């Protein structure tokens, strides 16, 4: 609990900054990812983890040693790592006869496992097998999901949200157009998920927007969905809760039509219509005699009321 953290006050400014970085905030930090090897990880899986680490630098931690845990049975060790290194995303690789080339990708909420999806790697081409120039590390990738499978089942929908969360990088308000360098493309087809990454080449076209040519750059994986451990609906809803301060403010007195017309509302005080400024019609102008009689009538009315 945060109260227990504050009982012992940090003695240095550095410790205080460290704790402040880890406490819950309104607008959060970029999510860190930890990449863990299981007790029996083979070369493929290790290479996959290393490639993903290269994609996720500097927001990732690659653990060099093997950790003998089973994420689907016991999540305490993962939660302990997450708490120590302040990482809310993780990727765990292992290999055994029943599940060859296994990759568990997951995320945490409040240092407890929220979602976990197990994927099997069928084919893998690593970064160093494709011999061409790569993009600098830390670039924000573009993500594209193709295939209608990603909206059909709940598993696939969560997988899409998990992959977006994993690979999206820091949220920025401006982006340099020339710095859009690579794209991660996920295709769901026939029960398999093809993950390809391409480097972007901008070619001249007749107008301002360039024509795109792609060059295969990075790790390419053929994945198969295996087990899933998804969070219950209320835990998921709790984790999605947005603080009130961040909700977009609704502008009052403005409404929109179905046709796209914007309507505004103006509130005015009550007008005295007798004093309304209209066109002056000379014929209707009051003559002095009439005005005197009107005043007398008003006075008599006032006396009557009293």
């Amino acid at each position, binding site marked *: 609990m945060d109260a227990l953290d504050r009982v012992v006050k940090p003695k240095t400014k550095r410790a205080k900054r460290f704790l402040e970085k880890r406490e819950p905030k309104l607008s959060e930090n970029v999510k860190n990812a930890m990449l863990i090897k299981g007790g029996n990880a083979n070369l493929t899986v290790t290479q996959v983890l290393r490639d993903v680490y290269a994609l996720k630098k500097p927001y990732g931690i690659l653990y060099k040693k093997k950790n003998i845990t089973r994420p689907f049975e016991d999540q305490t060790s993962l939660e302990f790592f997450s708490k120590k290194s302040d990482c809310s995303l993780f990727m765990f690789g292992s290999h055994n006869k029943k599940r060859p080339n296994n990759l568990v990708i997951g995320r945490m909420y409040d240092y407890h496992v929220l979602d976990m999806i197990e994927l099997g790697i069928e084919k893998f081409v690593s970064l160093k097998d494709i011999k061409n120039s790569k993009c600098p590390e830390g670039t*924000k990738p573009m993500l594209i*999901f*193709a295939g209608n499978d990603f909206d059909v089942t709940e598993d696939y929908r969560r997988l899409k949200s998990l992959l977006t969360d994993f690979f999206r990088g820091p949220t920025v308000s401006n982006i340099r157009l020339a710095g859009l360098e690579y794209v991660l493309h996920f295709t769901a087809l026939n029960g398999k998920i093809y993950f390809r990454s391409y480097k972007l080449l901008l070619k001249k076209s007749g107008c301002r927007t360039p024509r795109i*040519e792609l060059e295969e750059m990075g790790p390419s994986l053929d994945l198969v969905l295996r087990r899933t451990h998804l969070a219950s609906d209320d835990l998921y809803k709790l984790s*999605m809760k947005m603080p009130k301060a961040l909700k977009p403010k609704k502008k009052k007195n403005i409404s929109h039509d179905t046709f796209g017309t914007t309507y505004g509302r103006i509130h005015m005080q009550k007008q005295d219509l007798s004093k309304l400024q209209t066109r002056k019609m000379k014929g209707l102008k009051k003559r002095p005699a009439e005005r005197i009689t009107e005043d007398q009538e008003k006075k008599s009315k006032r006396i009557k009321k009293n």
Partner: protein
Amino acid sequence: MEGQSVEELLAKAEQDEAEKLRLITVHKELELEFDLGNLLASDRNPPTGLRRGGPTPEAELKALARDNTQLLINQLWQLPTERVEEAVVAQLPEPITRLPREKPVPRPRPLTRWQQFARLKGIRPKKKTNLVWDEVSGQWRRRWGYQRARDDTKEWLIEVPGNADPLEDQFAKRTQAKKERVAKNELNRLRNLARAHKMQLPSSAGLHPTGHQSKEELGRALQVAKVSTASVGRFQERLPKEKAPRGSGKKRKFQPLFGDFAAEKKSQLEMLRVMNSKKPQLDVTRATNKQMREEDQEEAAKRRKMGQKGKRKGGRQGPGGKRKGGPPSQGGKSKGGLGGKMNSGPPGLGSKRKGGQRQGGKKRK
């Protein structure tokens, strides 16, 4: 004639435009969904072209990726741009996809005792300089902390005041006073923390003596204190006029395992008969009690809402909202009951409730 030439010109202009955009247009059956804040695009079109691909559909995947990326880039290039230090920078909108947070929303911390006092009195923090001129050392020193300007404990000469005991150690007195101040500060900080911590937990009101507790709180505290002995309150005497506490008996009563066989057989057969019967069983007293209780609750909620509305302008929808939540679910059930087909699945209890609600529904409308 001129009309024709104008039309021709327009058609030609359109053709030119199309030519220009030929290189970057992509035809898709379903439009992609873009989330430019995350640089994300979702293509809902089923990838039919790839099904023929065979074992390694690399080329088709690349073509599909190229098309999708082209569409995403087209969208990105339409964003408003500005020049920032010789680079053309596009302003991204807010990300649309909602992703779960990694930590819970921070709870607003309650004010400390000083903050409450300051708010009451209208005291605002005065802006102070970081450094203070120290005459003794002849330099600018910080206001508080390590090597501060006017450090009481670091003086090398202290005059013994007139009324003090001449054998008293003034230096020790000063260090002792400092230690006491530090301890008091720490105590207050922990107390503020405990108060904040306590407010965030479900309230154990009444069990901590504050001097102004309500009658119910005192009653609850009394009950809890009575039961918190080693023999769970069995040997605690009651005061002469004290009444037994309400609702402190067993919550459920279970029949013994080997009891009256005839009674058990009878009750089981009765249950089967009720389940198989097509007509719903209606327990009139239970239904009317339930109805009366709901009406009372509604009245209380309405009164509360009126009272609150009098106090504040915007009436809170809390109790009203809860009220709305209740009836539709029951209304749904009653509709199912009225629908006609009555399965023997739901046992007698469910059917009793349905019967009650049917009455209630009519009454309300």
